[in-house]
């Protein structure tokens, strides 16, 4: 859709907050230094699984500079946290379940004293047998981590008759895929500060993706009234899902409650690595059947994901994994099951894609295996099977609008063909083999089959100044800019002319989590609704003032004018007092909850999401057959985002997603108990980045604000499968476990014969 009809939507305006960041304003918690702030430090478990017989804080208390050492018994409210299922104590009570578990919290005048005291806390542990492998944890006699058993949840999606379909299938492919635990490695380690307000309110600034959830959780931990706690999201240097959990917020709340004095807690990179959520490692058994034309007729999928010691977002990961297992393909007969299991690893939680990136490795590998078995082109088999308008998904949902998967395939095709025909056959040194691979994906916007509303308020003052109040945490992706554009468009204002109040529980209402790629779509709609209500009030008053019917009136540049005679106009600042003086309302609330239907517990039938994003990536790689080094040269990334409200932001998400996908594909692996920091955990550097060619596809979503959906998580999902398919194409040998490290790629090269045949003896 052309951007000309829009005033600000579709334009890459200057991002809100850019200036503050570029000029180094103290907007991040680590840079905020309230006077006389105490330093907090958690004491963490020394055992992956152990009973706690006693905690002795006396020698810690005698360290000079120590103000207080807290244990579980100091928590006045409910010592239990978790956004979906509550299973995680702020401070361990009777036992520890992983090396990350906090058992005590020190408050001291200096960081040094806090460290010394933390080391001096003596805990009497009774070590218990531990279990780390999720499949072992499911055994009858496995050590029990939680009273309810080690199987946290099992999610199923069934449709059609899988057995019959396999019986009739022409080709059946059955494989097992494995993915690694991943650390989010956001730029800014978790941080927060807190202080008591003049009226005694406990004010907490935090690096967070969900201030309103933090608020609920701190209130519950402290057992206080809602108004006793105020959470303000500080500038947040990335989150990728890990800042959806309570990382420092609870500690700050606890210390503030007791000490009534400013406190701060800034994780070191090491603590952020140890103590925050990881991406769930998956084991995926997938079996698919195709007819002789390449149409996939059946899929059976059984996955086990390791949620570690606590649930965090694990239940959401399991259900999303089951729902997304088919990928963006129409498969009539499915039997899909994902089980999330507790182990004694540090907990896993949300990370960009919630289980979908793991599933995409499996379904995209299967697609290529079928294509190969039938001698089809990988793009062709995806076109054949790809969802379209009218496709019925595994959960029985009919896709009616904004189904842009085929458009994404079409969009990458020219570059893909160029690579296959030209680039592949260019001369290279004998030790380099080139490959081209495709990865497709779909991603449901918002939470799976549950209500997940957002609210917003748009208010105009007597002078005509508009302020947008939103609880939506901008974590670097630019939601505040996009929401301002949406409000601006509805009111005919420049986005920058709107004041914003963002993610402050004293002034904003709940917008839900900045996760599930939901904020542009869901909060965008809430904002638009509020702005539309305000616009309507202005128009109504303008009718009265200008004596022109509403349908001829337009809003632009802070005024209402007659579209036929633009000189007939009235400024908002004139309308506002007139409305107020008549007792009218200039402050409007918006609310949007996407239409979903809860999934049936046995069959998964229902409507998990009201809309989906789609994407296709093509990756061009070079593999060194002698060493296993892999270079990703080029990624062509087509994304159906419905409508790009801010195209540069979309491109930023795509490029960042590709970077994360390169890491997931080739190098990232968090090994609990071994991985300590960025010294031994490798994420891609600029030198590892391919040339990215982003392509924005806009299959307009009727229920979206100006047609928009989302892109945050989709950006990452197709990259790793595209790279793995490209490496396979290069070597003629497939890798089934991520990351495709030096070791795994060299193994594949040896197995394929390329290692030995690289240089021929004459």
């Amino acid at each position, binding site marked *: 859709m052309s951007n000309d009809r829009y005033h600000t939507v579709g334009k890459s305006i200057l991002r809100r907050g850019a200036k503050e960041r570029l000029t180094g304003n103290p907007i991040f918690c680590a840079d905020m230094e309230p006077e006389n702030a105490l330093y907090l430090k958690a004491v963490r478990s020394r055992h992956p699984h152990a009973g706690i017989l006693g905690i002795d804080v006396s020698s810690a208390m005698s360290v000079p500079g120590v103000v207080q050492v807290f244990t579980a018994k100091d928590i006045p409210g409910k010592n239990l946290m978790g956004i979906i299922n509550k299973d995680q104590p702020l401070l361990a009570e009777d036992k520890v379940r992983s090396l990350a578990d906090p058992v005590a919290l020190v408050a001291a005048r*200096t*960081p*040094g004293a806090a*460290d010394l005291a933390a080391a001096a806390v003596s805990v009497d542990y009774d070590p218990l047998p531990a279990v780390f492998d999720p499949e072992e944890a499911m055994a009858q006699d496995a050590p029990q981590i939680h009273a309810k058993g080690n199987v946290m949840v099992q999610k199923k999606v069934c449709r059609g008759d899988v057995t019959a379909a396999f019986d009739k299938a022409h080709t059946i492919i059955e494989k097992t895929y494995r993915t690694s635990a991943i650390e989010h490695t956001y730029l800014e380690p978790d941080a927060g500060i807190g202080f008591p307000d003049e009226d005694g309110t406990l004010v907490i600034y935090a690096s967070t993706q969900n201030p309103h959830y933090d608020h609920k959780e701190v209130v519950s931990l402290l057992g206080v009234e809602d108004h006793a706690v105020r959470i303000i999201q500080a500038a947040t240097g990335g989150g990728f899902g890990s800042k959806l959990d309570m990382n420092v917020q609870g500690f700050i709340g606890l210390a503030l409650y007791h000490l009534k004095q400013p406190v701060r807690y800034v994780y070191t990179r090491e603590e952020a690595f140890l103590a925050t959520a990881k991406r769930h490692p998956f084991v995926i058994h997938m079996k698919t059947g195709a007819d002789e034309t390449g149409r996939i007729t059946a899929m059976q999928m059984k996955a086990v994901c390791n949620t570690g010691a606590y649930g965090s977002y694990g239940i959401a990961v399991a259900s999303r994994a089951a729902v997304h297992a088919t990928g963006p393909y129409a498969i009539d007969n499915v039997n899909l099951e994902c089980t999330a299991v507790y182990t004694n690893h540090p907990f896993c939680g949300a990370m960009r894609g919630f289980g979908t990136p793991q599933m995409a490795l499996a379904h995209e590998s299967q697609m290529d295996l079928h294509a190969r078995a039938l001698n089809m082109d990988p793009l062709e088999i995806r076109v054949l099977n790809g969802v379209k308008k009218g496709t019925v998904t595994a959960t029985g949902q009919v896709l009616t609008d904004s189904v842009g998967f085929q458009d994404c395939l079409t969009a990458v095709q020219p570059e893909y063909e160029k690579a296959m025909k030209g680039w592949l056959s260019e001369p290279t040194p*004998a*030790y380099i083999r080139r490959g081209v691979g495709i990865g497709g994906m779909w991603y449901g916007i918002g939470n799976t089959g549950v209500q997940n509303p957002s609210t917003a308020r748009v208010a105009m003052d007597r002078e005509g100044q508009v302020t947008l109040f939103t609880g939506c945490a901008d974590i670097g992706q630019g939601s505040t800019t996009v929401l301002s554009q949406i409000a601006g468009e509805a009111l005919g204002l420049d986005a920058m002319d709107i004041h914003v109040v963002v993610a402050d529980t004293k002034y904003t209402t709940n917008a839900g989590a900045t996760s599930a790629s939901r904020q542009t779509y869901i909060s965008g709609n809430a904002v638009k609704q509020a702005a539309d209500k305000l616009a309507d009030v202005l128009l109504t008053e303008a009718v009265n003032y200008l004596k022109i019917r509403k349908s001829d009136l337009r809003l632009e540049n802070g005024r209402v004018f007659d579209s036929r005679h633009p000189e007939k106009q009235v400024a908002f600042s004139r309308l506002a007092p007139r409305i107020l003086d008549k007792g009218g309302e200039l402050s409007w609330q918006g609310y949007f909850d996407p239409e979903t239907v809860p999934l049936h517990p046995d069959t998964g039938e229902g409507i998990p999401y009201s809309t989906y994003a789609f994407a296709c990536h093509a990756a061009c790689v070079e593999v*060194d*057959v*002698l*060493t*296993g*080094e892999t*270079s990703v040269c080029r990624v062509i990334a087509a994304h159906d985002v419905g409508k790009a409200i801010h195209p540069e932001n979309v491109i930023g998400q795509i490029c960042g997603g590709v970077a994360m996908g390169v890491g997931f594909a080739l*190098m990232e692996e968090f090994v609990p108990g071994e991985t300590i920091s960025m*010294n031994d955990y*490798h994420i*891609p*550097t*600029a*030198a*590892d980045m391919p040339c990215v060619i982003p392509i924005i596809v806009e299959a307009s979503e009727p229920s979206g604000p100006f047609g928009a959906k989302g892109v945050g998580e989709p950006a990452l999902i197709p990259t790793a499968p595209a790279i793995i398919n490209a490496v396979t194409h290069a070597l003629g040998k497939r890798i089934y476990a991520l990351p495709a*490290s*030096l*070791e795994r790629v*060299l193994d594949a090269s*040896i197995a394929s014969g390329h*290692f030995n045949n*690289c*240089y*021929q*003896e*004459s």
Partner: protein
Amino acid sequence: MTTMTCIRPENLDEAVDFLHHHGPDTHILAGGTDLMVDLRSGKHHRPYLLDTSRIDSLKTVQISDDLSRLSIGSGVTLTRINTLPLIKDHAPALHKCSFTFASRQIRNMATIGGNVAHASPCGDTIPPLVIHEAEAVVANKDGNRNIPLLEMNKGAYQSALHPEDLVVKFILQARQPGFSDFQKIGRRKALATSRMSMAVMADKDSQGCISFIRFSLGACTPTPQRMHDVESLFTGKIPSVKLINQGAGLLAEKMVEITGRRPSITYKEPAVQGLFKRMIYPMVTWCRQ
């Protein structure tokens, strides 16, 4: 957290004198790219930090009049190694290693002296220094002594230096070889510790036979290694694919002899052969030119 006193001597004598009195209580600080990491991890607590960055005499690079000996001050940064024509011409493999060393920011700080003194098996300057039969000139109150590079480390991260010792410079057998290279394998393209590295330089005679060759393997073994057997295999021969395959096999065998079969050998045994082949194969054409 402990406090440290930072000493900034203006010349070598002051530094040596301070080390004479406080050596065991002192960390020598050059670029700090290893030391700051170690200090932060809490591995060491010594009361003094001796900052060598103001000592100009540690930063000189000189070639002897007969062009046989190249002297590189311990305080020379990797950025300078990357840009100085003298090093590019007379120690080309050392020059080459500076391209893939860490990142530009680290190279601006990191010194060759720190790289060697840190005694990490993965130091990228080590194989190039070994093929130039480098010696470290080490100063202390008793005067200067020379330590061959192959004797600098007692084991992984165990330097043969005494706490009173300051590395002043390295003396290399300068050479403008017909063929030279440095290659490494890391887990990513920048800011990656070498999993494996190697350096070579060679000359040929008029028949295309190898008349001179030096080869060193890095990062795979606890201490620096010059691979004499590999050198002997090539000497006097015209490189062929067959010879290179043979050399690769021999290299792997020698490596396993030194390290034994640890789990990482599953990768290193083939990879060392692969990297060797990749690096040496161009010799086949070069010798036939």
